[in-house]
């Protein structure tokens, strides 16, 4: 999966993003392609019932 320069420019315009020239868009392309590849891989997963949590607690297995 890839995104064309025209699409990226349209996204920037529509979402009031940071303006990038064609050359600059080429420079961020490796990062974007990596993102899109990972996003594609995530389609395999059913994430509907995954809860979110950040903090860790000692009763998760640690000792203090």
């Amino acid at each position: 999966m890839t995104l064309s320069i025209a699409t990226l420019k349209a996204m920037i315009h529509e979402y009031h993003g940071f303006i990038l020239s064609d050359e600059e868009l080429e420079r961020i392309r490796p990062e974007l392609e990596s993102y899109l590849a990972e996003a594609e891989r995530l389609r395999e997963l059913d994430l509907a019932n995954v809860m979110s949590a950040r903090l860790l607690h000692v009763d998760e297995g640690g000792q203090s």
Partner: protein
Amino acid sequence: MSAIELLKLSISELSVQIKARKVSPVELTEAALTQADRLQPTLCSFITILHDQAMRQAKEQEAALARGEYRGPLQGIPIGIKDNLATAGIRTTVGSKVLADYIPAEDAHVVRLCQAAGAIMLGKENLEEFAAGATSNNPHYGAVHNPWALEHIPGGSSGGGGANVAACLTFASLGTDLGGSVRLPGTFCGVVGLKQTFGRVSQRGLLVTSFNGDHIGPMTRSVRDSALMLQVIAGYDALDPSTVPVPVPDYTAALGHEVRGLRMGIPTNYYFDLLDPEVDAAVRRAIEDLEALGVSTKAISLPSMRYVGALRIASLADSVVTHEPYLATHRQDYGPDVLYRTLAGQFVLGRDYSKALKVQRLIKEEHARVLQEVDFLVTPTAPIAAPRIDTPTFRLGETEYRVRGPGSGVVSRYTSPSNATGLPAITIPCGFTRAGLPIGIQFIGRPFDEARLLQVADAYESVSPSRGRRPALVDAG
């Protein structure tokens, strides 16, 4: 004892002599400043050296000791502070041109704790621009050089701290670790780097950071010194809601205790999938050394790591939000590596960001599950030893990978998962490549179980082939 011999001691060795008033904080700080002035042109490891302030603090600590006021093992010890940690009245650049003249009004919480413990702040240390990368090749303040091989990177983003500790300019450094930024300089510079559990140490005063997974942690030349540093900076901070109000144990209590009977988990997927052969061999030898110490081995599987790349989606989006106000007004002041890596984040969809956070949860649960079966995990710290400063890529097998800028991230593939899980992780030197570059092994532990990690790391340190080794430039000149 000569000045260089003093500088090569550990904090635990020196603190006994300082307490007994056999070594003077003033003498020690003068020696450290001399070493810093000698090696700064070579290493570029500081952004600001605090000559006057350090000497003033050293005299204060010496006077306190003379009055019988002993403040603990850090008293009179020169340390470095990464230049993204706020220091009151001292410019704090975050390695950027954007904040080149920024002078905070207050110290970061950890800086205050170290100063209260009597530590001497030798200087503010060089880093990757905005701490956003693994090279410490800073476009505004110069590239930090690795003391073991000057043409190589020290790792990043806390590269100045790693170089300073390895080259005996400082006895410890406070770094920050969002994806491995303490542990990568640890492995590349051959020192101990600790990222404790998320919530164990206050992040208050850590500037321009992501809200999701940053940590402040110590770099030291020994595991015992790492324990001493953590002892000072750990604890609940009512003004930082990310800290957790759990008791702080005595981190040195278990050091020296045998590790026979502990169980280590060796991942069968992901963590050993992409490795330089010399790194692989050194880590496998270290595992054998741990087995010889009586630690049993269990193969463990982490299938969710197939999706670990999703974590980068979240960090991309977080990064552009963090930088938005600066990009709006100072875009021209950014170096290209950080600028273009950050700007890619504006294209991340909310759907994908939400998925990334859910994957983070899956990975965290999976690590928690396997850490019920074993006491700690063993992995390489990095897939390679330190690459050269002048190369933008490195090769593993048939594939070329970027070291910095957009599309990089392979260097931190074994460290960044612990930022997402929040689990404590420590890197210990475990040998050298044929070219003389340090290699590190990483131990990952249970939440808030840093004491166990330190015990294991201390036991391994006693048999590591790296023990006692210092870069040649420490003594030169």
